[in-house]
């Protein structure tokens, strides 16, 4: 690892003016100001990642072995599944996104994080909110609204802590020392502004004072799709736009393209949600508008893809040295694929088959995991050693982590997308029974794909475990450097248990 780290640093020097002697102090100052806050957010995020993975495996296993833990009301499938989603969305992904986003904001504004303890405090309340929420869902208190299951007594806590975090991001921006705005900053600012809007609108219109009838479904999917489109996607893209050029030491391929990519995303993505209701009891115009907007997504997706992949072009050799780059490029490619796949799924003739099937689940994991989570892993691999001024203890563990997650998610998405499509085709053929004993049926044909998903999920879980080991290990090393009498044990013998 140490070898590849130095090569990253060397690769950075041509463009990174921050690395020159006088500016370096600012970078150190920024990283030091972020350290405790970000460590808190990342630890919290990883905690939810592990719990969320366990619940994911439970839910997945129950799909092909319904009697597994079948007698416990708290662990019935219909509660375990939303708990997995909420832990991953509001626990792991949001918390990590905030950590990465704030760090990017500070670095790009060249200003230290002001009063990091406020963010840590908001983070504590955020975690408490998520914890209350998931326990409530397990106890049977779900609101019954997809992506908004957390009951109304926990959501104000989430909203207030989020508002605090967003305001802090914007304050950091206000006190920037760098007048020029980089493309990542637009995405970050927009995400910080958009999420509280959609979250509060959904809470008011669905939970506090519900609108009537299927208008609820419209609000629900406007919100749920925008959590991806206006919150996670911008942060993921901001990270890719920052880290790929940074690590390979080349500027972004075409700056004007990134302007086009950003504003077309802002314009089209938030109109996409109704494609989750194709064929549903909604006015046709509403669904058609969303399908058109989904198709228009081809503009931001292709411009961003050209920008990311053309920046990478000719630098693929660097993938060997830099784990950060490996995660980022994997995430960037997944973003292109998942978006194009998503556009196809939104079209009526495709949706007629794939809607209501596991194919949708494959697609959502392609977006949330293969794109977003992988990018967040990459960002954490870059940020954490800079916060702690300690290198990652084991390069081998990073490699294991990457390959477990990359192979795991590939063998999750591809079979499930195929299985889901076959399921949809069978479902649209009334001659195939829905379920009929040992005979071939819509249900029976999905079982092998569902089993495949459980095994891939275990591989992904193993990847998360290795990341957790590396994270604890680097924290332990850092803690050792804090004790002045003992010199930093850079080559200390490693405990066999790790």
């Amino acid at each position, binding site marked *: 690892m140490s070898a590849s780290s130095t090569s990253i640093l060397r690769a950075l020097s041509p463009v990174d003016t921050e690395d020159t002697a006088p500016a370096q102090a600012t970078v150190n100052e920024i990283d030091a100001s972020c350290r405790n806050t970000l460590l808190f957010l990342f630890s919290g995020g990883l905690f939810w990642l592990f719990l969320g993975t366990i619940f994911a495996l439970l839910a997945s296993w129950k799909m092909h072995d319904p*009697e597994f833990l079948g007698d416990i009301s708290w662990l019935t499938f219909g509660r375990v599944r*939303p708990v997995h989603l909420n832990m991953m969305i509001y626990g792991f992904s949001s918390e990590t996104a905030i950590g990465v986003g704030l760090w990017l904001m500070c670095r790009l504004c060249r200003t230290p994080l002001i009063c990091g303890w406020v963010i840590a405090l908001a983070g504590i309340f955020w975690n408490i909110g998520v914890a209350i929420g998931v326990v409530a869902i397990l106890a049977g208190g779900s609101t*019954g609204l997809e992506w908004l299951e957390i009951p109304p007594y926990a959501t104000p806590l989430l909203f207030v802590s989020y508002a605090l975090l967003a305001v802090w991001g914007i304050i950091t921006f206000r006190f920037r020392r760098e007048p020029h705005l980089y493309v990542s900053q637009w995405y970050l600012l927009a995400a910080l502004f958009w999420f509280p809007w959609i979250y509060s609108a959904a809470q008011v219109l669905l939970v506090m004072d519900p609108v*009537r009838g299927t208008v*609820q479904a419209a609000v629900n999917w406007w919100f749920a799709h925008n959590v991806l489109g206006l919150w996670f996607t911008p942060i993921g893209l901001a990270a890719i736009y920052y880290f790929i050029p940074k690590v390979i030491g080349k500027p972004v391929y075409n700056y004007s393209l990134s302007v086009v990519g950003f504003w077309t995303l802002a314009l089209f993505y938030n109109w996409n949600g109704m494609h989750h209701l194709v064929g549903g009891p909604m006015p046709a115009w509403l669904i058609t508008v969303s399908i058109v907007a989904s198709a228009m997504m081809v503009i931001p997706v292709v411009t961003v893809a050209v920008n990311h992949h053309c920046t990478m072009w000719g630098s693929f050799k660097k993938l060997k040295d830099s784990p950060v780059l490996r995660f980022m490029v994997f995430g960037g490619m997944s973003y292109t694929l998942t978006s194009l796949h998503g556009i196809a799924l939104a079209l009526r003739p495709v949706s007629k088959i794939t809607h209501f099937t596991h194919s949708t689940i494959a697609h959502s994991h392609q977006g949330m995991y293969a794109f977003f989570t992988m990018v967040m892993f990459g960002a954490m691999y870059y940020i954490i050693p800079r916060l702690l001024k300690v290198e990652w203890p084991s390069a081998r563990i990073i490699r294991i982590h990457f390959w477990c997650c990359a192979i795991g998610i590939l063998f999750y998405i591809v079979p499930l997308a195929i299985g889901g499509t076959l399921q949809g085709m069978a*479902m649209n053929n009334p001659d195939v029974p829905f379920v009929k004993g040992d005979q071939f049926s819509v249900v029976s044909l999905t079982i092998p794909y569902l089993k495949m998903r459980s095994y891939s999920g275990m591989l992904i879980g193993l990847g998360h475990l290795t990341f957790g080991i590396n994270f604890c290990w680097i924290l332990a090393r850092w803690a050792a450097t804090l004790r002045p009498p003992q010199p930093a044990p850079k080559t200390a013998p490693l405990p066999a248990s790790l």
Partner: protein
Amino acid sequence: MNYGPLLFLGFFLTVAASWCGLVLAPQIQFGRMQAIKIEETGAYYPQMRTGLAESGREVYKANGCIYCHTQQVRAENFGADEARNWGTRRTVARDYLYDKPVMLGTMRTGPDLTNISLRQSSVEWHMVHLYNPRLTSKGSIMPPFRFLFETRKIGERPSPNALKLPPEATPPAGYEVVPTPDARALVEYLLSLKANAPLPEAK
């Protein structure tokens, strides 16, 4: 692109546009829809759910039935919903007027339940099915909801509500399986599910 307030104006306008289009416009178009009188029967449709069926909706919600079952029938030329006998007509916005929350669902790991009361009207069938879905539907991957039932010692006389379970699932001698109030409510809710009123807009 370096001027903060202008950026925020852009962020605001883009999300406000979709909010107007996808939230406000549907609210204006059908957010105040009312029940109508069905000519054939003279009754108003839809009817508000009350009593046990209404509390059954809470059980349906709490146990996440929505993650595997939809409550929407697509039009005849769009999928095989009607051919599978899941409905005689497509569902429309008016069918859901009083649902809070509306549980359309997005996944059909199990069959659609819009008209389940018309396909399975027997309380006994639903009870046994919830207790162990594989007793009534071999090959099903639905989770068992045994926690909605109580296995207890038979008192002076057996309960009239006790489940008539097939031999492989009968409780030990002297015991009986009875539904809890939650199970009774849930079945009552399932038996309230139907969308077959001849609405003019769904013809």
